Structures are given as structure tokens and as C-alpha cells.
């Protein structure tokens, strides 16, 4: 029994962190949010160079065959640096969906392309979690029509879209006619989400049915939780740093008990989330019977704690936190988006109750 990261996991996490610290800074996030498209391409190149898109993909398809815990560690660093690049949909949910049943044709065809970074995959499962008005897909004569919103990782001309209809996971090659993708403007400029309109488009069924859909959503939720963990850690760290520089009343504000206790409460709330997340991520690959429940708890609990951390740390930054000058709002908003996609806290807790047989 070892409840800790292995040396390899530490090295992976450190190397991602190092790469990000060298390549991502606040100016880049600012320029990206102003629409500098070159930034997306550049970061994507670096991420591909490190082999990250293939992290979950088995070696036979050109990936590194690691697990959800490793993917979560990367997501945590992506959250910490608010990285504007496809990750959770393309490199985690899509490979999980395609590899659900071993050795199917679609996996053989697409996983190598995802691993090599040749294509990106967009995942559109919002409606499988819950439908808002004027959304949803339907199948007619094996062609899909309708609208899916808040699809993940659709910003870089995705070659394939993975979505669900009639309790089946389906794959759409965007080279087919009838697919329209446009970005939905949200608070979070670091991670674009897209709306996809399908107009009688050819599909292929990814084997696995409802279980495959659930597993794909599960890993998405765990990864969002990991992103929140990283973003929140960063906000606390920066708030403490700021409190040790900023002076009022001839003292650094970090010497006031009120500020100290705000920071202590954030840290006390967040720290156990790390263990929850590790366990939830580990369970996805190793403890089938707990995978559903733990993904719900990780998502809901980190959404709540993350929102608190975002609010309180902004208060530690004071007026500066409210301005654009420090740019901490990128994390505030990133946490805000993660909270809502693939199910908000109330919805996800309801699922957690159902999984345990409560609420028939």
C-alpha cells in the first residue's frame, strides 16, 4: 500500500511544470484572451512535442500507456498555469471512449493520430449529462442532427467529434458534410468551448454503450477536478505571496490575523482535496466499483472548495485582485467554468446519491 505519487509520477509532474513555467506567463494569457490565435498553435506544438496527447494511449498506438492519475497530474499543472490548449477532451475523454472496448477499428484508426498530435478530438457530452433547452441530438437513418453545446476541445479544427445519441457513443469525422463548429464565449478565455450543429451527418458507433459513455464522463469529471485543484493551489500560493509584499498600516497584510486565517482556511479546505483527487483518479483505472462515485465526489467537492478559494484569494489581493493588473481573474474564471461543465455541484451530488442506491 502506498498512498503517494511514485517517483515516475513526480518526475512527470515536475517536467510538465517546468515546461509550462518556461512557456506560459500572464502576458501570454492576456494576448491569447485578446484573440492571438498563434498562441494556441504554439502551445499545442510544445504539448505534442512532450508527447502529452498520447499519455493514456497504449504503446501499440504510439502513446505512453499511462493512467488517469498521470493525466490528472498533468491537468493539475494545466490548471495551475491556466494553459490554453486542448487537454481534457482530446487527450483524456476521447482516448478513454475509443479504448473502452479493446481493439476496435475506430481505436486503431484514430488513437495513433491523437497520440501523434496529428489531429485533435472534440468531445460533446454535455447533453448526455443533462439537456438545456434547444439542445440535443437525434438519429435518423444513421445520420445525426441537432445541437450540442459546451463541447470540449473543439477550438483547433478537430478532426473527430465524440458524442452520444440513443445511449451509444458515436464518432463523427468532421470531413463529412454537415458539421458546423463555433466557439461559445464564456468567462474563461483560457479554455474555449464550442457549439456544434449537426445537419444529417454520417456517424460511426464506438462500442461500449452506456457504460462507455459513463466512463468517459467520469474521467472528464476527475480531470476537471484536477484542473480546479491546480488553479486553486495557484491562487492560494499567489495570495500568500502577495500578502507578504503588500503593506497597509505599516505591516505586510499577511501579518494580520484576519488575512492569515483566510489563507489558513483556504489551505485547510483544499489540502484534503488532493487526496480525494488522487484516490478518484486511481479508482478510474483500478477500482471499478468506486469509479463512478469518486468521480462525482471529486468534481462536486472541488467545485465547491475551488469557488471558495477563488473568492477568498481574490479578497486577499484586495483591489488589485479585482483589476486585470495581476491577472488572477483568469484562474477565478477557469474555476468558474470547470464548476459548471459536465454537471454542476447539485447535479453531480444527486448522481452520487443515485449511484449508492439512494433516491430511487
Amino acid at each position: 500500500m502506498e498512498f503517494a505519487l511514485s517517483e515516475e509520477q513526480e518526475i512527470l509532474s515536475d517536467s510538465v511544470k517546468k515546461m509550462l513555467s518556461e512557456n506560459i506567463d500572464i502576458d501570454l494569457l492576456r494576448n491569447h484572451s485578446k484573440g492571438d490565435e498563434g498562441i494556441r498553435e504554439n502551445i499545442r506544438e510544445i504539448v505534442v512535442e512532450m508527447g502529452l496527447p498520447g499519455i493514456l494511449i497504449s504503446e501499440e498506438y504510439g502513446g505512453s500507456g499511462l493512467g488517469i492519475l498521470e493525466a490528472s497530474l498533468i491537468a493539475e499543472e494545466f490548471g495551475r498555469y491556466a494553459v490554453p490548449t486542448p487537454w481534457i477532451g482530446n487527450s483524456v475523454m476521447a482516448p478513454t471512449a475509443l479504448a473502452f472496448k479493446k481493439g476496435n477499428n475506430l481505436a486503431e484508426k484514430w488513437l495513433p493520430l491523437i497520440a501523434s498530435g496529428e489531429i485533435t478530438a472534440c468531445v460533446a457530452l454535455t447533453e448526455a449529462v443533462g439537456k438545456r433547452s434547444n439542445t440535443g441530438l437525434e438519429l435518423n437513418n444513421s445520420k445525426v442532427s441537432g445541437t450540442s453545446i459546451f463541447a470540449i476541445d473543439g477550438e483547433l479544427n478537430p478532426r473527430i467529434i465524440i458524442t452520444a445519441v440513443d445511449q451509444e457513443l458515436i464518432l463523427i469525422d468532421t470531413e463529412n458534410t454537415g458539421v458546423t463548429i463555433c466557439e461559445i464565449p464564456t468567462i474563461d478565455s483560457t479554455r474555449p468551448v464550442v457549439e456544434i450543429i449537426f445537419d444529417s451527418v454520417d456517424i460511426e458507433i464506438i462500442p461500449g454503450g452506456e457504460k462507455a459513455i459513463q466512463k468517459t464522463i467520469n474521467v472528464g469529471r476527475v480531470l476537471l477536478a484536477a484542473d480546479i485543484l491546480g488553479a486553486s493551489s495557484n491562487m492560494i500560493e499567489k495570495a500568500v505571496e502577495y500578502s507578504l509584499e503588500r503593506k497597509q498600516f505599516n505591516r505586510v497584510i499577511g501579518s494580520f490575523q484576519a488575512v492569515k486565517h483566510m489563507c489558513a482556511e483556504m489551505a485547510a479546505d483544499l489540502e484534503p482535496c488532493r487526496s480525494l483527487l488522487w484516490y478518484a483518479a486511481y479508482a478510474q483505472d483500478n477500482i471499478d466499483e468506486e469509479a463512478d462515485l469518486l468521480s462525482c465526489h471529486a468534481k462536486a467537492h472541488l467545485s465547491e472548495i475551488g469557488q471558495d478559494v477563488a473568492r477568498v484569494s481574490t479578497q486577499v489581493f484586495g483591489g488589485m485582485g479585482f483589476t486585470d493588473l495581476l491577472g488572477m481573474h483568469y484562474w477565478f474564471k477557469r474555476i468558474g467554468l470547470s464548476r459548471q461543465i459536465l454537471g454542476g455541484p447539485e447535479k453531480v451530488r444527486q448522481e452520487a446519491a443515485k449511484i449508492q442506491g439512494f433516491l430511487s
Partner: protein
Amino acid sequence: MDLNAGPEYVSFRKEVTNFLSENIHMAGKARTPVRPSKQELEWQKKLIDKGYAARTIPQEYGGFGADSDVLKSRIIAEEFSQSSIPLGMANQGISMLVPTLLELGTDEQKKSWISKTISGEVIWCQGYSEPGSGSDLASLQTKAVDDGDDFVVNGQKIWTSGAQMSDMMFCLVRTEPDAPKHKGISYLLIDMKTPGIEVRPLMTMTGHAEFNEVFFTDVRVPKSQIVGKRGEGWYVANATLTHERGMLGDPNQSATRLKEIIDLMQEETFNGEKLIDNPVYLDRLMKLQARVLSMSFNSLRLLTASHKKSDAKMAKLIVKLNGCQLNHDLAGFAIDLLGELGTIYGKSNHDHGSGKWQWKFMFDLGLIIGGGTAQIQKNIISESGLGMPREPKPILEGKK
């Protein structure tokens, strides 16, 4: 306790509603600070003539000259709010400078500024906070050096809303650098067209520039432009600061938001189920409703206290802290109700009104911080409200 209005007030309310129904076509809309248009200036004049704006300001300074009657003021506010019509021009010149001048200005200052300010001819901005002086406002460093007939001002202000379209600024500057920090400050009126003033918009987390930074380089201000005595600016400013704090965390705003949220819950669905039918959301709604009602009734209590010129003490001290947090929480709830859609911030086919909620969610967090942070509010509540001691002065460590 008597929540019925007397007959005088019933008929006054009727007068106001009649006025509104007859004149509503002339009113503009509430807007983010811009110079008033000709139509708005005319509307303002009409409101002052009727006593719906500048109601208690003496006629000699261009006001309506009525006696103070908080109930009538409230009726006016309520009816204008019901009709979604702004209650005349609202700016910091009217809400903060004018009361200050009335109390502490010279005759000449009153004559020069009050009439022009309430009519909308002269627009003011406020120059208090500085980058290094937020919670510790009295540590402000913008200097005004005595030089013949003028002060020469150098320094920087921040959080100045409307600076780019203002004619004048009322401003705190340090005139006596060697005095204790609260005793070295003076209150100056500065013409924004004076050479050496630069206004830079200050972008906030909302993505808008609701505020500005203002930079002063060798800005000459005639000495006659001081309000109160030299070195007493802190005390001049303080009366109106209290007034500003009372304005933040308005319970009417909370009540309006709650109503909008209920509408939203009745309209929106998730998985085909109306949000209003979700017991968990309803429980959250009821918790918020109890807070909204409590703050609304607290505000009635303050109104009566003000009417009776009695001190509402704790009931007043807690308004900013509670009200701003409540408004923030309401916006956060609306966002949660909308789920993914709640994150939309810009033009989209799927926009169900989240932009407004997100803006409020962020701007209200700014209000929790601004105008005295939540931490400063808690200091005030514990000290002024509960009689607990001030933080003891620390032994300062030697400079490094």
C-alpha cells in the same frame, strides 16, 4: 410598529405616480457614466423643479429646498424604481461632494459648485484611494506642496470612476508631510483640465474599465480650492465616506435579483424538468429569500431611525458587509441555476442572460473589497458596534 403610511404619504405617492405616468417618455435610461445629454439635463431640471431630485438642497443653491422627510424620499425612490426610471442623475458629485460643501464649504464654494453640480452642468469624480493606500486610506501619498497662490500636486489616484468625463475632482492630498498621517491631509477641488493630469482607464476582472487611474504631474491648484482647513481633509472626507458605505449593499437590489431568480427558475429547464421543481435548488432559494427579507426589513428599520434622527448603530454598521455578500451570493446562485449556460459571457445563441449575472458576480466581489473591505467592516463592527479594542500597535521591527 406601524407599516401603514399616513394619509399625507398616500397622497404624496399618488402625486409621484401621476408625474411618472405623464412624463415617463421624457426620461432617459440608467447608463454607465457618460456626460448627460441635453434631454437628460432637461429631465434633471424637471425633477428638481418637482422636488424629486435635490429635494432638500436649499433653493439658493439651486435645489428644491424641502425639509428632510425620509419617507417621502423613499416613496420617490420606490416609485421611480418601480417604473425603472433613474432618479435623476446619480454621481459622486451629487451624493458626496454636495453634502460636504453644504456642511463645510465656504459661502463662495457653495455658490460656485452646488447649483452646477446638481443640474448636471459640472460632473465630479472622487480622488481618495491610491495604489498604496487602500484599507489604510490615511496613508495616502499624493503630495500638494505650497507654492505661492497654488498647491502643486504630484502623485496618483486609483478607483476613480468617471474620471475621463469629469470636469472636476474632489481629492485628498498630503499637504503637511511631517504631521501624523491623519492630520496632514487636505481636501482639494481640482479642475480636471489642469495641465499635468492624465487619466488611464483601469480594466477589471469583468473585462470592462469601470474605474480609472489618475496621474498628477506638477498640477497647480489655487489655494482657494481647499474645502475646510488645511490639514483637516481627513475629517472633511469622513462624513461623506460613511455616507458612501451606507449606499453599498442596497437591499432593493437584492430583492430585485431574487425576483429575477425566481422568474429564471420558472422559465428554465434542465433535462425537461423546471428548475423551480428541484427541491435542492428550492432549499437554497428559501435560504437566500430569508436573507433578502431580513436585509429589506433592516432597511425599513434604518429608514425609521433616520426619520426619528436616532442612531441605528449595529443595524447600520452591518449593511455593507451583509448586503454585498448577499448580492454576490445571489448572482452565484443564478449562475449555478443556469449551469453551463451560466458561464456564457458574450454573444451566443444560447445566452439565457448569464452575462448580467457573471458581471454582477464579479463586480459585487469588487464591492465586497471596495469601499472598506469585508475585513475592515468587521473591524468596524467589532470596535464601534461591540466595543472591542482596536488592534494594539505592533512593535515595528528595525528596517532591513
